[in-house]
């Protein structure tokens, strides 16, 4: 019985993460977008906690704590700070509209389930939908990066991709050896710092972090 409840909770967290991803695609304002990202990270931390509790692998607790500290608290604050500092426009700049983006993310989810089908048929129930969902979150993150024009939205897309990746890592492998998790978080952290610096510099050069101004380098 306990097993069943935890399996359902794992699934619930994964689905909630996917839901926040889809909502992020439908968001037109910057601040709610950042809130959605930290909400997604809360669900990721919850997922990590449940898996750590049921599998008894204590190193996943560390992953859970790191997620809470870095992705729920530090990174959203940092993004808000950058936004405030460079007076970025409050609107998300879209290159395809909301209905189009939602349709595309629906398609991504479909594709993920299609790809994951041959893999999950041999797996235990707990992991079943997590692989497909993590793939969906990664693809939707990629979609966001491709269709949003601001440097900050590109960054959030990348961070959401990472969330999808960690969901996969926790559910599929019950957390890879700890070194990888810490390394990955370290990597993300440094990437965000660099991206912050560049967002600053792009702002200096173009008076806006709209990356559609980044179209000088051509053939």
């Amino acid at each position, binding site marked *: 019985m306990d097993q069943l409840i935890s399996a359902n909770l794992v699934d619930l967290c994964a689905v909630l993460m996917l839901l926040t991803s889809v909502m992020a695609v439908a968001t037109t304002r910057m601040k709610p977008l950042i809130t959605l990202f930290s909400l997604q990270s809360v669900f990721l931390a919850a997922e990590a906690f449940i898996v750590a509790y049921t599998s008894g692998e204590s190193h996943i607790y560390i992953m859970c704590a790191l997620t809470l500290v870095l992705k729920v608290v530090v990174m959203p604050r940092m993004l808000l700070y950058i936004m405030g500092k460079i007076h970025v426009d409050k609107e998300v700049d879209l290159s395809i509209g909301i209905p189009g983006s939602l349709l595309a993310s629906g398609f991504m989810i479909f594709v993920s389930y299609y*790809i994951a089908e*041959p*893999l999950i048929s*041999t797996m235990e129930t707990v992991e079943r939908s997590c692989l497909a969902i*993590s*793939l969906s979150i*990664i693809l939707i993150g*990629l979609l966001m*990066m491709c269709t949003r024009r601001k*440097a900050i939205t*590109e960054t959030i897309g*990348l961070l959401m*991709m*990472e969330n999808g*990746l960690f969901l*996969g*890592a926790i559910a*599929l*492998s019950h957390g*890879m*050896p700890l*070194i*990888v998790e810490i*390394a*990955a978080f370290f*990597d993300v952290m*440094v*990437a965000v710092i*660099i*991206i912050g610096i*560049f967002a600053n*510099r*792009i702002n200096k*050069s*173009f008076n806006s972090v709209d*990356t559609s101004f*980044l179209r*000088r*380098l051509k*053939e």
Partner: protein
Amino acid sequence: MNADILVLVAAMVASSLLCIAVRNRKAVSTVMPACSLLLLALCLNLCVPVLGGEVVDDGVFWMDPLSAVFMLLVAFVGFVASLYSRAYIGLEAEEGVVSRRENGVYYSLLIVFISVMMLTFTVRSMAVVWLGIGATTLVSTFLVGFYSRDESTEAAWKYIILCSVGITIALFGLTLVYASTVGVIDSDHALDWPALMEHASELDPNMMRMAMVLIIVGFGTKVGFFPMHTWLPDAHSQAPSPISGLLSAVLLNCAMYGILRFYGVSEVLDPGFASTIMLVFGFLSLGAAAFFIITSRDLKRMLAYSSIENMGLIAIGFGIGTPVAIAAALLQMTAHSVTKPILFFSAGNVIQSYGTREMSRIRGVSRSMPFTAAALAVGTLAIVGCPPFSVFVGELSLMLGALDSGMAWAVALTVALLAIVFAGMARNVFPMLSGEPPEYARDLRGFSRTAPLVILIVATLALGLFMAESVSDWIGNAASSVTGVFP
């Protein structure tokens, strides 16, 4: 054996700290190349026995001939690039383009960049290899965006965003590899390459297939495979020329190394799967690059596309997948690594003298700067595969490898595309050499401007003309360690 690795790592740390500590502009530009020469010497000391077939096996460290080939190339190109930096960045510092602080930052980042690339090849766990490849991106982003111009910032932005996406996708692939080892390999060693290779045939094949697709696409973004290559021409054209040479000659190899290790495992488990993907990406990259080389107007962008072309050729070699073809691909990689910096460095000389990268505005190089013109001509002939240079030997053995496995169509297609590349490069480069130079064009001389070019030309000639028996043995050993089958 392990003492050598520890000494090398200690030397890396010490020279990085030294380069950060030295404040004087002139001093650091001499200290840093000296440090990288030291690293090259230590690396030779470490790698030569490994290339002969001795495997370093000690805790986190693990090296076989394949890692040694990659590492030696990084150390060698790293040294010539640092020496050339002394001339290139030195001139910009004198002209006031680069401040004293930026000068110090440049050399510190350069030595850290070279060290990180070398370390990537020394470790046992593929997770740490992944981390190394990720770290090279972070360090080199600052080198790509070194100038505070708008275009450099844009190039660096594209570079870090696209490569981060690639690295993320590759890590997802690694997760799947890990998942496929559950129940086969003890989880603490699941991503250790020797363990993966040993148990390759017992892994979950479905999981491994999906992992391979993700790994080739993810790391392939950083190798510069078409259509994920879009960051590459921007980064190569906007970075300072010594960095462009380093990126093209060895950074792309680092990501290729990541693919190769898993390629070996996948080929044991599922022959023909990974190699088909490589073959497709190889021809796509070769074809697209041939088209862009003909149409490019910017000198360094053209050279960047030539790197994509060469990475395509190397991928085709692994795509064919026979031992002969794999050895040929490694030979081609070595040849590309020692030849491409000739072009980037001589292009750097031309660009500093003419103040433009636009090829139509550069004329009369052979009169204004004879040595650079000669190097540019030699480099162009070498990279398009004229005998007696090393790329010719690499391409020839690649064709032989393809014919050997009955893939005549691949040979025909490759030859046709290479002919287009030849025509494009010749059409773009040779007009720059002739004609009347503008008055402002001046010759740039100096030991650290000439010596790197001479060293590289001698190296590519030596590899092409007298392929020493030991060198071909080394390449053969490295090829055997890709597939894990030793003859």
